[in-house]
Structure formats: C-alpha cells, structure tokens
C-alpha cells in the first residue's frame, strides 16, 4: 500500500485518468461490517440539511469534551468514565454482539452511518487551518482509542485483520534465538510462550521506541501482539492527517451553494481553543505598581512555578531558554511593559555585559512581546502566557533548567522542602499536596496551596459576598493565580472598581 503511494508512474496515471473521465461515478452503499472504522471511504448517500448539522454538533460535543479532559490532565480511566454517558447519548456505537444473533441490523447501521457522516462533516469544517487540522486529528485519534479499547476483543481482532497492515510474524526459531532480549524489552512479561511478536519498521511504532518498550534491531521493531493498539492508533492518525491535508486542498473547490458553508464556518468557530484561558482582562490590574523594580515584592503573589523561576534567577543570575520564555510571558501577562521587562532581565543577568545581553537575549524578550518577528507574531502581540496545561505537558525541564511545574517536575522531597521554604508549614496542606501529586492532580495541589495561603481573605470575600463562585473557580493559569492573589491581598487598598474576573 505504501509502495504504490510513493512511486509515481506518469504513464499509468494518464491511462487511468482518460478511462475515468467519462465514467459514471459508482457509488456504493456501505454496509458497515465493523463497529470501528478508519474512515477511508467518504460517504456518498444523501442526508438532510438538518441531519448534517445535528450530527456534526453531536460529534463536536464529544470531541470538545475529550479535549477538555486532556487539558485537565485526566487519566485515561477517568476520561473514559466521564465520556461514557455522553457517548451513549450523542454518539452511540454498539458492537455487533449487541445485536440479535451478532448480525448487523438496522439500528447498528444507523449508528454507524451517523458516526461515519459526522466524522466527514467535521473533516470539512476543520481542515481549514493547520492548527484546526492538528487538533481535530488529535481528538479524533483519542476518540478512536477510547472506542478501540472498549471494543469486544474478537471484533477488534477481526477489524484489525481487515485493515491489512503489513505485519510480519516473528517465527519460533527467531523467537527462541532472541528470547532473553525479547523478554527484557517487553515490560511485564515473564515467559516467552505467553506472547507473540511481529516485526515492523521501527518508524511505525515511534512511541514504543521512544519509551524503550520494544526490542529494536537493525531498524526493525519487535512488537508484542498486545501493543497492537499503539500501532493501529499511529496508523489511524497518520491516515487522518494525510486525508485532512487533501481535504484542505480540495476545500476551495467545494462546489457548493450557500447552504453548507455557513454551517461549516459556524462549527469550526465553536471548536473554541481551551488554551485561551488567558485573555487581556487577566492582565488588567489598574493602579497596581507593576514595574521592573517591583518584581521582587510582587513575587509573593506568584504561583510556585514562577517563584521557583524567580529565586533561581536571583540565585544564578541567569535562566536557561525555556525558563526565560515561561517567565517572560508570565511577566507580560501580569502587565509588565516591554521596556520594564527588558530592564528587569538586564538587571537580573548580573554577570554578563550589555553587549552580550543585547546580542543574545534582547531579541527573545522582544519576540515574546510581539515587538519583532514574523507578521503573525506581531499581530498576535507575541505568544500568550503559558497556561498550566502547557507548562505541564510541554518541554519537561532537563539539567540546570528551572521551568515547568514544581508540582509535577520535582520529586516529592524537593517539592516539600521548597513549599516549606516559601512558608507553607501546615502539615495537612503538605500531606494533601503529596496525595494530589501522587494522583497526578498537580493543579489541585497548586490550588490547595493557594487556598491555604489566602484562606482568611477567601473567607472574607465569601462571607461578604463580594466574589461569587465564578471568581473562585479552580485556577488553571499562572496569571490567574497572580491576579487573584494580588486582589485578595489588597482587598481594601485597590481603587473601587468592578472586581470581576471574566473567565
């Protein structure tokens, strides 16, 4: 299958082209023999405009929910549990065995048709930009994974076989020869005859290679049968990404009256970016003295990640690249002007010369503010300050780096001692943090510390009814942390204004 794609034979192509030019398109009704689908064949039957819209919206609802689960760092089990009722309601997809006699009946066909059509409608809606394509492919793959894992094992096997993926089974002789190594490379396996392996090019299982959970020899990965899932998923997302690109190229030529385009536009807009947890209003703190000289004083309101960056900066008089980036964007977010920010960094890097600063650092700070760089960067006034989501999932810190989230990237001991150093001595809080971190609920841990540090103020605003529950939602952005902390600690001092925090 791959071979025919890579090779381009002009002669043969032309013949085909002539043949098909006047031929009638032969549409075939799909009979959906399997529950799952790689969505290789687009739908061709007619559906009503209303179906077009409602099916798409139903699917979109599911996808948005999946994405928000991933942004909240939910574990696969939690995600599955959360989505189960929703899937049942909006996008049911039953297995063959649920029908009488295991035969695909009308109900199953209808479910599968809806799944099939809604997928392709959303493809149209989300192929427009690179960003949408990437997100769509990501959540679709997650949805597929969810269903694939929940599938009946026999049906799953039948489905995988129907995919015709090019897998070479490792023969007994080779298996014995490599016995030791196969066992060592396959986690959780004790005996050789419990498992079978197949050989594929390692590039088809990059994830397994990355985590060293397969044996790799001479460019071939020895994948245990049970890792099928990972391979099927890779295949799924690869094909989908390719198809989305093709769709986007075809989109301008969509031969369409003005019925579908508005719906599609509307759909793609509703797939809002949850990462935009930061808005301009988060930074507006009128009357607050935010300037380069004040950062030390303000740092008492910083969340732990930024405090860590700040103390590291003060200690080493330097921060590495990602640390500078994360911190600069945060400072931008709290309302520090570009000029002040440059002053701040210049003064903080005590050991370097002006010349070196101008050459090596100045540009990056300006770039973060959108003062230089490409058109898009300037128009967007640089990058948005990083959300917890981004800090938690991207670029884990390496040697000598101070960025990231202490709750996630520190060992428990180091985290505890750092919390104590910042004045958190309450044993209940520390124990709670430890439990949160063990359950990988890093933002909960951070919020716990916040609530402890501001407990009297929070009580006051609650009692006096100054702040509603919306203003005290879980914090998922370092800049929200700062703003809320600052407002709470300065309750009486700030000029009277509408102390609302739009989310």
């Amino acid at each position, binding site marked *: 299958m791959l071979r025919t794609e890579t090779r381009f034979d002009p002669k043969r192509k032309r013949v085909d082209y002539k043949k098909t030019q006047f031929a009638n398109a032969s549409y075939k009704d799909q009979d959906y023999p399997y529950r799952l689908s790689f969505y290789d064949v687009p739908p061709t039957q007619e559906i009503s405009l209303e179906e077009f819209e409602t099916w798409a919206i139903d699917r979109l609802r599911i996808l948005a929910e999946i994405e928000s689960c991933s942004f909240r760092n939910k574990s696969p089990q939690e995600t599955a549990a959360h989505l189960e009722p929703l899937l049942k309601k909006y996008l049911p997809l039953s297995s063959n065995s649920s029908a009488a006699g295991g035969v695909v009946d009308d109900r199953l066909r209808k479910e599968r048709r809806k799944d099939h059509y809604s997928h392709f409608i959303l493809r149209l809606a989300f192929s427009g930009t690179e960003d949408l394509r990437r997100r769509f492919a990501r959540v679709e793959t997650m949805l597929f994974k969810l269903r694939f894992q929940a599938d009946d094992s026999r049906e799953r096997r039948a489905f995988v076989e129907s995919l015709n993926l090019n897998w070479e089974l490792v023969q007994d002789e080779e298996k014995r020869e490599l016995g030791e190594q196969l066992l060592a490379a396959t986690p959780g396996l004790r005996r050789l005859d419990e498992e079978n392996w197949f050989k594929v090019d390692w590039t088809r299982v*990059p994830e397994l290679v990355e985590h060293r959970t397969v044996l790799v020899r001479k460019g071939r990965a020895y994948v245990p049968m049970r890792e099928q899932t990972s391979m099927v998923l890779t295949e799924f997302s690869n094909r989908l990404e390719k198809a989305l690109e093709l769709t986007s190229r075809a989109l301008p030529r969509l031969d369409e009256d003005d019925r579908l385009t508005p719906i599609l536009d509307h759909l793609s807009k509703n797939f809002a970016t949850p990462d935009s947890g930061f808005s301009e209003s988060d930074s507006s703190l009128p009357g607050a003295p935010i300037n380069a000289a004040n950062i030390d004083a303000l740092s008492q309101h910083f969340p732990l990640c930024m405090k860590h960056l700040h103390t590291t900066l003060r200690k080493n008089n330097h921060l590495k690249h990602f640390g500078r980036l994360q911190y600069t964007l945060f400072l931008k977010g709290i309302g520090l002007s570009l000029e002040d920010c440059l002053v701040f960094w210049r003064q903080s890097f005590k050991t370097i010369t002006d010349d070196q600063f101008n050459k090596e650092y100045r540009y990056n700070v300006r770039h973060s503010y959108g003062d230089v760089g490409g058109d898009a960067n300037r128009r967007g006034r640089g990058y948005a300050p990083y959300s917890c989501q981004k800090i938690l999932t991207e670029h884990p810190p390496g040697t*000598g780096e101070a960025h990231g989230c202490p709750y996630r*990237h520190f060992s428990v001991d180091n985290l505890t001692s750092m919390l104590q150093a910042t004045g958190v001595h309450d044993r209940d809080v520390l124990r709670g943090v430890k439990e949160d971190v063990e359950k990988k609920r890093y933002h909960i841990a951070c919020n716990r510390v916040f609530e402890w540090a501001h407990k009297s103020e929070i009580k006051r605003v609650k009692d006096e009814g100054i702040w509603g529950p919306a203003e005290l939602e879980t914090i998922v952005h370092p800049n929200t942390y700062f703003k809320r902390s600052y407002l709470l600690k300065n309750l009486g001092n700030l000029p009277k204004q509408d102390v609302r925090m739009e989310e």
Partner: protein
Amino acid sequence: MADSSSPREHSPTQDDDVSLPDAPAPANNDDAPAPENTNGAAANQPGVALEDLFDDDDEALANELEASSAANIPSSPPQTAPSSSAPEIASSAQQQESYSDPNLMRQFYSRLFPFRSLFQWLNHSPKPGPDFSNREFALTLPNDAYLRYQSYPTADMLRKDILRHNPSRFEIGPVYTTNPRDRKTLRKSSMFRPLSKEIVFDIDLTDYDDIRTCCEKANICNKCWAFATMAIKVVDVALRDDFGFEHIIWIYSGRRGVHAWISDKDARELDDDKRKAITGYFEVLKGGVQGGKRVNLRRPLHPHIVRSLEILKPYFAQVLVDQEPFLSKTGQDRLLQLLPDKSLTEALAKKWASSPERPSHKKWADIDSMAETGVSKTLDRKALLQAKQDIVLEYTYPRLDVEVGKKRIHLLKSPFVVHPGTGRVCVPITAGGDMKRADSFDPLSVPKVNELLREVDQFGAGAGDGDEPSNGFVEDGVTMRKLNDWEKTSLKPYVELFDGFVKTLLKSEMVRVKRERDEDGATGTDGMEF
C-alpha cells in the same frame, strides 16, 4: 600571506570545477617570511577592501585587481592599514591572536577548508542536485550578524560566498522543498518546509557539570573528555545495531562538545516525531538536579541499557578515580541518597564521617562490604544491585542535548569550521564505527587555525631545497598533481577520515539509486500490458 595565495587562485577556478581544491601554492616558501615584511601584510589591505567593492563580480577579476593593486600601491588604504596590519604581524610571530581575526579566517577558507568534501557529503552524488542546492546555510558574519537561508547551487558558489562574507562560522540546516533563497516568492508560505536533514545529536560537557569535578563551564581536560568518549561509544553502537544506521560521523565541536551526524537516507528523511522517538530511546537521565533520583529504569533492563552498562562499567571505575564524585560532602550525600536501605546508608555515613578523605572508589567498594557485614537485617540485595546500576548510569550514561535532535529545522555548526573561542577546527573524531579512533582522540591536540596556516607556510621550507616533489607536488598514480594545502598540514588525517566517510556514503547512495531505477524499470514493463 593572503596576497600570496589569492592571485594564483584564479587559475584553477578558470580551469574547471574539477580543480576546486583550496588554493594551490607552488612557490609558497618564498612568502614564508612575510611576518617580517611589513609591506606584504599592509599590501594585503587594499585587496580586502576592493574585494568588498566588487562583491558580485567575477572572483577572477577581483583577484586580478587585488594583485595589481597590491603590486602598485602598497599602502594605499588610508586609516585602516596601520591598525589592522599591526596585529597581523604580531599574530604570526607570537601567539596572541584573536581566532576570529578576519584575515586569519579568510586564509583558512581559501586555502584549507575542504569545500569539495563538504559538498559531496551534503549532495550525496558528484553531480550538483537539489540535496545541495536547496540546503540552508546560516552564516555568522564577523560583525556577529546572523545570515540565515543562504543556499548555493554548487560547491564553487559556496566557496565564493564564504570567501566574500568571511563568516566567523557557519551552520548547516535542512534541505527544503525549494531553494531557501526563493522562499518569499512562493505563493503560500506553507509550501516552504524542510524535507530532510541528517539526524544530529549534540553532547555538551557542560551538561555534566554536576558530576564533573575537574573542570566546569567551557573548560575541558582529558579527564572529562572521557565522558564524551563513552557517550560516543554508547550511542554509536545503538545507532548501528538497533536502528540499522551506517553512515554516522562524530565531529568535535571545537570546544567542549561533540556532534553526531547520521547521513543514511532513511535517517535524513525521518519526520520530527520519529526523531523525537530516537532521542527518547536514548534518554535515561530524567529531570533536573531538583528532580531527585534521575535514573528510574524498568526491570528487567532493556537490551540497550544492558549493553550500555557493559560499555560503561569500566568507565565508571575510571570516573571514580578521575572525578572523585563522592569525595566531597555533597557528592557523598548524593550517593547515600541514591542507595535504598536506611540502616545501610546510616552505617556508611558513620564510617565515612571518620575518614573524610576516603577516595570515591573505596567508598564505592564500601557499599558492598558493608552490606556483607549484615548491618541491615532488611537489606534487599536486588534493590541494592539495581540502585548501584542506576548510579553507574547516572555518572556515566550519555547526556544528550535533546532539543537539537528533535527537529529537522535545527541548524548545527558545519564540520571543519573554526570555533571562534578556541581557534580549533571542528574535525571529525571518528566514523564508520571505529571506536579505537574515538578512544585515541585528544581534543587538546586538535589543530588550531593559526597553527595550520603556519604549517602551510613552513611546508617545503623545512624539507630542504633539493627535495623538489615535496614542494607542493605529489605523485598521483600516473601523473604528478599539485598538493592541496590541507595536505601539507596536520589537518590531513582529519580530511582523509571525512573523505573516507563521504566515499562510503556516496557508494551506498549510488547502489540505492541504481536499485531504485532497476525496480522502476521492472514495474514500467509490467505496466505495458496489451
């Protein structure tokens, strides 16, 4: 000195591109005493200025002008001449030059830099093709401006442009879908994207600073270079045996680092996800110094780790002696922190408290002997063994700068450029999996640019007057050929190593092209059905 080489240079460029080599200098020795010759050095100046004026002109013409102006008006350039000629004199006589001295660099590029080898390496074929012409080069100019998206159709054009800009160093980026210079003329900017690039790895000894006690920051010595050698060994064998790559060359970065370039076709075409997978495969140490235990491996150990441990064990013993990682209080605490059993670590801490000078290898041995005495009733021998394995890895396993390897668009310094800080040439360390070579590599003996230029000048002069052939000619099978300037210097073995690497690469590339053509031919006839 520059004036002696450049005028003659135009003859080969006019001849043919075959004799691309770096400026031959048949009668070089009579210019050797140039340092004393103030005129010669000063006369060099107008040439430089003129060449800048004639930027885009034919080089031969520029050279002619340069030659004539050098002859006629020895000290015409007004203000600059005295100031800039003075350091040059001092430089050739003494050791105090700045390594990014523009004159030094220009001579280095024009006489010693192996452009042809570089071209063949990147082009994968003797005939200029898109692999070379769509390749991005990025130049760091003497004024520290950074010039990205440069590209060149041929090796000659590259050489010409490098001589014109005289960069303090230049970097190599990916091959793009189109010529990088045309990127702005494309209708859609998304059409301009990287297609292929060698997989690269970067190992930097500063990443070892928490376990390196002999030097820190930019400094290195032979002791800590051992970290680089073990890294090369571990990574090289895995790339070959596990991933099946063959064309791997290791380049010294000129100061404290090592770059690996993997030129296999399959490697060049990997997308970023796959690159990330490879770097992940090699990553064993996780987290920063704050992260507590940095090695947390699943048991049983993956075959790659088992093999790496076997390679690293002898080095660990060496590290204990050379670096004394557990001698200091912090080092000792770190060691105890990494060991599992509490009563064991307490006993050890007590024992060592009485002899603060106890060397690291003895402390390491103490762990086992203390465990033998049965100081701890609950000791889990397996856990102890595993902890010890983890410690060995933490103190020896390669620390790759992962970001460099993850993305195609990353630029990496070209082989054979000069490190501006040290003046050392970025020479290949080893290729073809020859680990003996990696063992014997000594970064402190890597030639410096000024030494090399002196070697060229001294060549022949020292060999005696009667010995004609040594004076720039060599028997080349049938005929005599001019000796390349680099062949007269200690750069020779390095260029030859590189050329050998490129040759095997080209050969395998040729075989591949031929095979693909044959296969295509076969399918072509299949398609002719009547």
